[in-house]
């Protein structure tokens, strides 16, 4: 295991300590638990609050999107492990601004069970909680079982749109509707070229040959759906794009937000080579790119690989996407 860390058990607490030291103007934590990250100005009274949570090892997901115009709080677990229901509850209590709390998070067993427990506990304290599950990964289940799909990079668009709606003063119903609308219009698909290592495990979750790639891997180092020979960038991109387009079925004339996301070790140069082909494929189909996001938005530590997310935008989603945001990892201003 070749990582820059001290004791594996301290990986997450020290990461959080560093993060809070680096961004004291933007981030704080609930109680004395660093795993309960909240906006420095939480609670924002009179605003619907948004919370997420999940395992560590995915920066900037999840806590990197806590800030103005996006999320209010995030419960942080150990690497690839859900935070506890108690931690989620602590975040919920700390960010509640009197208008309810929306949980938006990826469809993973541990997270679902704990957020469900947290919501039950919050209800006992008269905090209205609504849940929106992110299930954008087309590789993880066929369309007829879309409810089984896992949540990957597309969650960032959901955070963005729901966060903008809340920032604009939307009601609990409206914020939930914005998140669901974004999610209904987006799909993601990825490939991995190398595995990653959970610090405490000490060795990679899977191995992969020097000339192989893993189609549809998860962002937790879990194996994907298929192992194949490594292909040229244009073919890999075509592969991902076709899976998304077949599922999302956008039409000529549609506007799409595009995210080409690096999983951790893939150079930005390669992400732009992927973006180029994706852009060309959309142009050929008479579709246009509304906004392009190329970079690392949801990672798996040092995993090499990339994912593509497409979100079909109408005027409402476009406006939500354009709304300014400012978090430690995502700054967007009106052009």
């Amino acid at each position: 295991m070749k990582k820059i860390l001290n004791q594996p058990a301290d990986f997450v607490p020290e990461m959080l300590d560093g993060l809070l030291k680096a961004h004291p103007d933007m981030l704080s934590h609930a109680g004395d638990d660093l795993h309960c990250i909240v906006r420095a100005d939480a609670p924002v009274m009179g605003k619907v609050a948004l919370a997420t949570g999940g395992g560590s090892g995915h920066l900037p997901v999840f806590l990197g999107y806590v800030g103005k115009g996006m999320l209010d709080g995030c419960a942080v677990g150990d690497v690839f492990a859900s935070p506890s229901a108690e931690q989620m509850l602590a975040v919920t209590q700390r960010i509640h601004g009197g208008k309810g709390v929306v949980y938006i998070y990826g469809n993973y067993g541990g997270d679902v069970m704990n957020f469900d427990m947290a919501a039950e506990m919050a209800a006992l304290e008269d905090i209205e909680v609504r849940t929106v599950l992110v299930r954008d990964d087309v590789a993880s289940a066929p369309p007829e079982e879309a409810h089984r799909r896992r949540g990957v990079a597309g969650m960032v668009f959901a955070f963005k749109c729901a966060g903008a709606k809340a920032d604009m003063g939307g009601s609990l119903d409206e914020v939930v509707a914005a998140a669901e609308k974004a999610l209904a219009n987006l799909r993601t698909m990825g490939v991995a070229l190398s595995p990653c290592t959970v610090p405490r495990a000490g060795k990679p979750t899977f191995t992969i040959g020097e000339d192989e790639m893993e189609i549809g891997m998860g962002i937790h180092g879990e194996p994907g759906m298929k192992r194949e020979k490594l292909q040229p960038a244009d073919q890999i991109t075509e592969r991902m794009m076709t899976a998304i387009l077949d599922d999302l079925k956008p039409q000529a004339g549609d506007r799409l937000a595009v995210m080409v996301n690096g999983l951790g070790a893939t150079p930005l140069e390669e992400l732009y080579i992927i973006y180029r082909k994706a852009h060309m494929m959309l142009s050929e189909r008479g579709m246009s790119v509304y906004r392009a996001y190329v970079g690392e938005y949801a990672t798996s530590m040092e995993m090499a690989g990339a994912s593509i997310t497409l979100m079909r935008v109408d005027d409402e989603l476009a406006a939500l996407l354009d709304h300014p945001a400012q978090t430690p990892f995502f700054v967007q201003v009106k052009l």
Partner: protein
Amino acid sequence: MSGSVDAAAVVAAVQRVGVELVAQEAYLTALDQQMGDGDLGITLSKIGRALQGFAATTPVEGDIGKWLGKAGMAANRAGSSSFGTLLATALMRAGKVAAGKTELGGEDLAAMFAAADAGVQERGKAQPGDKTVIDALHPAAEAFAAAIASGQSLQEAGRAALAAAEAGRDSVTPLRSKVGRASWVGERTEGKVDAGCEAFVVMLRCLVNPSG
């Protein structure tokens, strides 16, 4: 008359399971790496340590049920992956059934086992045959209850439960995982043992055969 266990025995059992979970960290991690995210051993060793700490510092104070419920909360705080959360849920539900008790007879234990089983199914929403811990837990709970009902000793009922858990685990090994992370791995899960089933067997074996 099937025998009974007192508070000290329950505390000792939790201690023992805690030790065993720490000992099996590498083994369970390796299993979860095959079709999951490789955190099961880590989660359970954290929970194992937490349970040992809890058992060592928290007196039962005349209510085994309440004590088990608190043990479940300690477990959830320590490790909240799918399996960890289900284990915590099982402890809390079993504790609810044993509320106020200072001694547990065969029927009590059978009822606790059944409550844990129901709680795990409720929280995890998996069906038998989905290839999850339920496929080992559910037959084990039923075998335990049947053995107790037919007048067998705790020891015998425990062995029956363990045999049923192992059989349940093996029966789903050829299948494709339908729930949780493993379900995304698809056909490559066929023929591989479910890590959660095996973790449950490890714990149950340690309860039934204290020496190993």
